[in-house]
């Protein structure tokens, strides 16, 4: 009788042990997204968050039993640098996220220390520049190259034979880098340019514009957000007919509204499905429309975000097959991401470099049409 009892205890212990072994399997992974859902640059927050949610949903439906469930939690940073850390802390505290996607460059810098401390992987799905690439090893940028995209804007100005250029830019890292890229190529090619950093909530640009008009400025570059819509309106109101140039953010609906039509004809650096993998891009937009009932107003942010999160999901789904029991998820995922050499996404064939930046997304030049749409510029 005692023998049977001991045998039963042994079996139960074994079952418990085996059960506890199987508990090491990762069942669920939480991902956070911090982006502008209100206030400013909402085209870089709302549509990307929807695209990421779509990708997560598609994965959760098709995943196998052994693959972890992925949850996405979204926080609004109002495109403010100082809102990034509180949003990150909230996501960590409430959802214990292992990966955070963040679209604001300043915000990405803001959470650097904390993500290293927590072992969280940060991915910027909007911007990809040298500054971001120099951040810590847990930070990745799966997006177009900021410098390269804006360099093409400078080249366009040069090709158009414009000789005096005013560059206005929003006071954040992204727009500063963009402005510097334009200025750099112009300077290299002996084109006169003036770089002005505007105030964050500035809406009156009359003085700057009047001065530029007086200086016979023949090209105006607005590297910023919706408030530059006022600047465009004010410029046209002063009778400035020189061509306008803009960044990737022109398709913020408020930008169009604030410009009251002055934005029409503005050339900008932008990205649409024909610049990437047209078939996959078209499928994505179809799924997006089916899921949310409309296509995104500005296409490139959700496309980049969709590729960025899919690259991460593509690795995370292997967690239970590849990750060692004692290996930290953040370390494991970082190493996996460093080995992404060729991901065929909606934006093209993407690879991740040793510094966490990515290559393979190349922006083109577009012009804002009178109906608010963009028309690709043929050189």
């Amino acid at each position: 009788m005692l023998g049977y009892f001991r045998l039963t205890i042994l079996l139960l212990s074994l079952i418990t042990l085996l059960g506890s072994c199987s508990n090491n399997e990762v069942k669920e992974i939480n991902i956070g997204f911090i982006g502008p859902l209100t206030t400013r640059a909402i085209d870089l927050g709302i549509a990307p968050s929807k695209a990421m949610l779509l990708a997560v949903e598609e994965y959760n439906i098709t995943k196998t039993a052994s693959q972890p469930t992925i949850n996405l939690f979204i926080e609004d940073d109002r495109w403010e640098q100082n809102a990034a850390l509180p949003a990150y802390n909230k996501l960590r505290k409430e959802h214990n996220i292992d990966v955070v996607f963040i679209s604001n460059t300043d915000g990405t810098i803001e959470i650097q220390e904390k993500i290293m401390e927590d072992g969280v992987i940060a991915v910027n799905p909007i911007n990809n520049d040298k500054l971001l690439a120099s951040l810590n090893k847990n930070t990745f940028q799966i997006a177009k190259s900021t410098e390269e995209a804006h360099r093409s804007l400078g080249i366009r100005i040069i090709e158009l034979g414009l000789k005096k250029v005013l560059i206005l830019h929003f006071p954040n890292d992204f727009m500063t880098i963009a402005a510097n890229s334009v200025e750099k190529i112009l300077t290299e090619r002996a084109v006169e340019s003036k770089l002005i950093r505007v105030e964050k909530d500035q809406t009156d640009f009359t003085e700057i514009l009047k001065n530029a008009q007086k200086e016979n400025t023949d090209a105006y570059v607005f590297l910023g957000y919706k408030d530059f819509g006022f600047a465009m309106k004010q410029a046209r109101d002063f009778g400035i007919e020189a061509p306008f140039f803009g960044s990737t953010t022109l398709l913020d609906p408020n930008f169009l509204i604030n410009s009251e039509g002055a934005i029409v004809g503005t050339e900008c650096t932008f990205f649409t499905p024909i610049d990437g993998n047209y078939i996959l891009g078209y499928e994505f937009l179809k799924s997006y429309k089916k899921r949310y009932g409309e296509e995104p107003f500005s296409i490139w942010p959700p496309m980049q975000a969709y590729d960025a999160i899919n690259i991460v999901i593509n690795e995370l789904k292997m967690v239970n097959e590849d990750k060692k029991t004692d290996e930290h998820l953040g370390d494991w995922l970082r190493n996996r991401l460093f080995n992404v050499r060729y991901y065929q996404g909606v934006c093209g064939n993407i690879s991740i470099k040793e510094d966490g930046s990515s290559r393979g997304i190349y922006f083109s030049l577009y012009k804002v049409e009178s109906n608010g749409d963009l028309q690709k510029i043929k050189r």
Partner: protein
Amino acid sequence: MRIRTKLILSFGVIICILFLEIVLNQIISDNATKTYQKLKSQALPALRILDKYESINNELFLLTSNKVYNNNLPLNSQNRLNGILEVELPYLKTELFILSENLAANDQIVLKYPEIIEFTNNLILLGNRINTLLITKDDYLDSNKMQVALGIVEEDISKIHSQLNTSLLLLKINYGNLLEDYQNEFTQNLKSLSNIILITGIIGILFGIVVAYLVIRSISKPIGDLNSAALRVSRGDYATDINLKGRDELATLGNSFNIMTSSLRSNFELIKSNNKEIKQQEERIRKVIEASPAAIILMDPKKNISLINLQTENLFGYSRRELVGKSAEKLIPSKLIQNGSLVNNVFASRNKIDILGKDQNFYGLTKSGKKVPIEVRLNYIEIHNQDMILASIIDITERKEKEVEIKMYVDQLKSKNKELEQFSYITSHDLQEPLRTVLSFIDVIQDDYGDKLDPDMSMYLKYISDASTRMSNLIKSLLDYSRIGYKGVVETVDCNELIESVEADLKYKIESSKAEISYDTLPIVDGYHLELRLLFQNLITNAIKFHKKTEVPKINISFEDKITHWQFNVADNGIGIPKEFQSKIFVIFQRLHNREDYDGTGIGLSHCYKILELHGGKIWVNSEVGIGSTFHFTIPKNINFKNNG
């Protein structure tokens, strides 16, 4: 050869064929798998990479050429060129590296890998140089830049492109051949596999057919013979024998069958013989039953008669035909039918024998309706596995009549005995009266005329007085004798207390004779208290009275516990009784000695005899003259209370 051996061998060969097929299949499948793996992991990926490499190499050459020759490049093409330089070529390098890691050291790709990587790196370098040289339209107007760019395209890129293409082409040819070899090998493997399955399958099927034919043929004929023989046996032909040749199981079965039929023959003969004997036995029993002086009826559990004998016909007046198959209750008066439950009791208890009419009146009913006193003995018997009752019936009419007659005589005798006892009592009692008168008058004569009487007269009167006294004692004794058991009651008697009270009564005699009386702890018995006291008193008194003058009388009273009774022994060391008188001492008024030697009436032992007769016991004596006597008597443990009162 045994069938088992045949089957084992046959299946063994088939299993061997299958095993061979499995082994060959496994080997060829392994080869096919290896070939397929090579196809999948080496040849096809290599060709895919080489194709892509070639395509990208060509595209790069075209894009760079376009960029240089066509005065600027559309932004889309420029982006594509950038993609090739930044993503596609580095990726192909990585893929090629991974592939070469999985290939043998002497593989063409492994050998060519450094060369291809060098070409690729140079192409990336040159492409980036062109990108740096030619950015805007103005750059195309710069002859220096254009000269450098043209040089890069026409000399460097073109050359490297061509070399890379050649290397890739050679590799592609090699891998194309290898792919073809693998495909041929794979096809050959599949073909071999198919052939082996086909050949072994055909061999297996043919062998199976041959084995099946041989086995079926070796089994079916003997089984057919056995079947025919079994059918003949089933029809009663026990002389059937079969002859199956060989040493297999069926031949053994045939021998067993022959043994079985032989055994059946013997058994059948034995059964026939037994049946005959049983029939003879039954006939004998029938005759015995028939010859029985008692009427015999055999009935089943439902009391239906299945057999009767002649005496039954005679007793009940029915013929056999009228009784067999009918209920036995027909032969019993309806008011006694309830006694029929005894039949059920006999069936229930089996082996039990019940008797009807022994202690109570039981009657049979004749055909004419006359009731005949009978005694019925019911015996359970089993005949042919059926429970039966054998009723043996005796007509006890004559016995009943005799019993009535005997009872009448007994009653008369009892009445006479009673009258006699009454007479003795009355006589004894009434005789005392004239004797007392005679003795009174003798006393008066002696008192009043004693001095006037001459000596003779006085002597004569003394004789008359002694004789009258003796007569009175005799009558008193007789009266006592007749009163033994009269109005007595059976009760529990402690013999120890009884002896003690007798000793108290005989204290004077005991002390004067110095008698020694000893006894064990005596039992408590059921009996008539006064009579038992008298019994012990008479025996002790006799022992004291008939002691030897030279010895002190010693009396020992002991007992023995028998199953049905107590036996008491009263032993003395007295004068003893001669053998010839030992049977007379219990007769009334028998004396063995002169009155002068030993006084007494000679009725004491008669009292003892009658007391023990009253208790249903016995008394006898063992004695030796000069040694002593031992009186033995028994008292039953269960006194028949019929005698009570």
